């Protein structure tokens, strides 16, 4: 019998911190899943899943803070990011009728390795910052690194894949990463600001929709390899 098996173990994060960090890492993993996913429709569905995790984060934080703003934010982003934006993109994809699968410029394993490298950079770059946020009531500061990693891996997604849908989804998931970061250091941001961010996202969705339609009409494809055909 060895009584000291757990004696010298470093203390784990609290249950709240552990659960929220796990949810945040889940947001990061959906981007990795998008890197791997070949079908464009499944990519959009993964984005909906990712947004659901972000909503859950806002709701959990709202429950721990008893903050009505955060509940409202969770509901609003659910309607917008889980239902509306994916529905718009899926509808546009239905019209396009070509390109079930996006084009890979690089192998999946290469992209995932690049993703691991940039997310490692994100973790290390922001993991140990001391913002004096201990009493601010947001998510644990460690989540900031995860949010940064999400933004960077979304960049990888948008850069390494050459179709409009992956780039749009990469942009949207970048916004999700920023939302997670805002839950860390500005959890009690006035609701009107949060709503304006969400409105921004809607504008971006529309802009990407216009690009997708225009591009598809000209080139009969969603691949950005032929983007130069858009020149007048």
């Amino acid at each position, binding site marked *: 019998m060895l009584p000291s*098996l757990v004696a010298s*173990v470093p203390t*784990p*994060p609290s249950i709240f911190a552990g659960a929220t*960090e796990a949810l945040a*890492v889940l947001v990061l*993993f959906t981007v990795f899943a998008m890197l791997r996913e070949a079908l464009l429709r499944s990519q959009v569905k993964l984005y909906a899943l990712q947004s659901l995790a972000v909503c859950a984060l806002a709701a959990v934080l709202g429950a721990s803070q008893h903050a009505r703003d955060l509940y409202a934010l969770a509901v609003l982003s659910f309607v917008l990011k889980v239902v509306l934006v994916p529905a718009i993109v899926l509808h546009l994809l239905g019209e396009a009728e070509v390109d079930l699968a996006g084009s890979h410029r690089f192998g999946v394993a290469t992209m995932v390795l690049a993703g691991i490298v940039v997310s490692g950079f994100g973790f290390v770059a922001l993991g140990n910052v001391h913002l004096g946020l201990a009493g601010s009531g947001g998510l644990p500061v460690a989540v900031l690194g995860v949010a940064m990693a999400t933004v960077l891996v979304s960049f990888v997604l948008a850069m390494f894949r050459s179709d409009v849908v992956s780039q749009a989804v990469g942009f949207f998931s970048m916004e999700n990463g920023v939302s997670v970061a805002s839950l860390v250091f500005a959890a009690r941001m006035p609701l009107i600001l949060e709503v304006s961010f969400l409105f921004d996202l809607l504008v971006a969705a529309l802009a990407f929709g216009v690009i997708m339609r225009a591009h598809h009409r000209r080139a009969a494809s969603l691949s950005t390899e032929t983007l130069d055909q858009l020149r007048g």
Partner: protein
Amino acid sequence: MQLPVQAVQALQVLVVLVAAPFVSGAIAHIEARIQGRRGPRVLQPYYDIAKLFSKETLLPQDASWFFLAAPVIAFTSFLVVPMLIPVLTDFPLPLGYMGDIMGGGLVLALGGFSLALAAVGTGDPYAQLGSSRAMTFGALIEPSVLFVVFAVALITTTDLPYAMAAVDRSSLAQAIRPAHLFAAVAFFLVVLSDTGRIPVETHVSTLELGMIDEARGFEHSGPAFALLKWGAAVKQLVLYVILVDVFSAPWGLAGSRRLGPVLLAIPILLGKALGAGALFALIDNSFSKLRLYKITEFMASAFALSAVAVLVLYLGSG
């Protein structure tokens, strides 16, 4: 009644040795039920092994002495691992300090290596293809295993499987911390790959070109083949035990050497192993096998999971 510590130690190995074919048979039965078939008897693997032991041994023309030694080496190495991991008790037995997680991995790899070497020696092209693939994919999944071990080491400050299980049990905060969750999921994917399950390999396939592990035993026959099959069942149970008793559900183990709790731990262990096996069978029947050149994508996902598990720990949190 207090059991002598040697008896508990021996019982750990004995349980794995005797119960492994039962677990394999039960999982095959569950799998058949999922597919709407009646399936073989749960005890079928025992009959298969007994039948093979009474058959004669045929040797390929080019086989060396190692061809017959390999199944014995593999079988022995797979049986060494239950001494190192928590099978029945939640406290380390004396031989538990013989090796850490890396040691266990090394011993398992020795078994796989000797089988691959024997397969190469036969001159059968399919066996050679299988062993070459088994080694390649074994090497590709290894980084994930390493990072899981790193995560365990950072969480527990040791690399003993017993310590990992004890830390999981110690509090809910330890059990749901992201590093532990993602290391556990990464290890789940490693087990998926190491037991020859979909999406890496179809273990019931008869198509030689898609085979990885299965092809290695093509030239074996008689008692050697029986040991090979039994060894495969033992390896599978050992991996399941590590998955449930170290990473995901280290509850229900005996807390003392008294006869009652130790005996009670056996059905609990088998129940947990069957639960894990049923999950694997469900995955086996809900996904399709990956093309050979796409398997690296699966390995990359497992590696991403384990690498992020270590990265969140590196932040000093997680």
